[in-house]
């Protein structure tokens, strides 16, 4: 149950928020160094941040962490669907085990990704 609705929630989140944010980033990249710096200052880090950018910097990280989770959740439960498509994994216990592994695995992968990013940011 939970893993099914999470597949839809994470997929629709990626489709609307994730795809829009990717296009925003890509448009900024194509628009040149100034536009790209403005994008980074808004979403990630602004060295001379006013109140507005302090807030958007935090919001940007929250959204990016959310998108990372949605990516792994949708990827892992999508892989689960490929297995179910073959007709395997419908026994109650097996089904429940893999649903749990999908949810825990997505949280674990998200945490590992962001520990890596923050570690790189501190060392860099």
């Amino acid at each position, binding site marked *: 149950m939970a893993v099914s609705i999470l597949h839809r929630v994470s997929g629709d989140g990626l489709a609307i928020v994730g795809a829009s944010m990717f296009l925003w980033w890509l448009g900024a990249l194509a628009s040149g160094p100034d536009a790209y710096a403005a994008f980074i200052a808004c979403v990630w880090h602004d060295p001379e941040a006013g109140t507005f950018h302090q807030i958007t910097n935090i919001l940007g990280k929250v959204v990016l962490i959310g998108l990372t989770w949605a990516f792994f959740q949708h990827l892992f439960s*999508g892989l689960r669907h*490929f297995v179910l498509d073959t007709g395997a994994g419908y026994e109650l216990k097996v089904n429940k085990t893999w649903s749990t592994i999908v949810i825990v695995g997505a949280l674990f992968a998200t945490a590992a990704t962001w520990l890596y990013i923050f570690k790189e940011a501190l060392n860099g």
Partner: protein
Amino acid sequence: MGNGTRLGRVRGLGSSHHGSQHWLQQRLTALGNILLVGFLFVSFLRLPMTDHGAVARWASNPTVALALILMLVSVFWHLRLGLQVLIEDYVHGDGTRLLAVVLLNFYAIGGAAYGIFAIVRIALAPAAGLAPGGM
């Protein structure tokens, strides 16, 4: 095919409309997404993302630019199918549902076109001697 009950009249006809086509396209683009978004994810982790020059050089590499264009096609195709199911499940009324599907198609096709055009600009700007311009 029977002619008695409602179930009997439709049994054996296969799915109505484009159900199996939708199902197959969703899975084919899912496989594409695993490869192409996986590549994007690993690239994001390895790139100095705040450095415009480094990221633009990466994106203008022909292999990378091609992978990004394929990724946009695969992702926007997949999300169009997924959001269509969302609309079919939650938007009721023929008029509003039609409007929602039209808006979804504008978003999916327009978004993919915008993204592909941005990549082409990044990849060809050095060869064409173009300065980066507003998107």
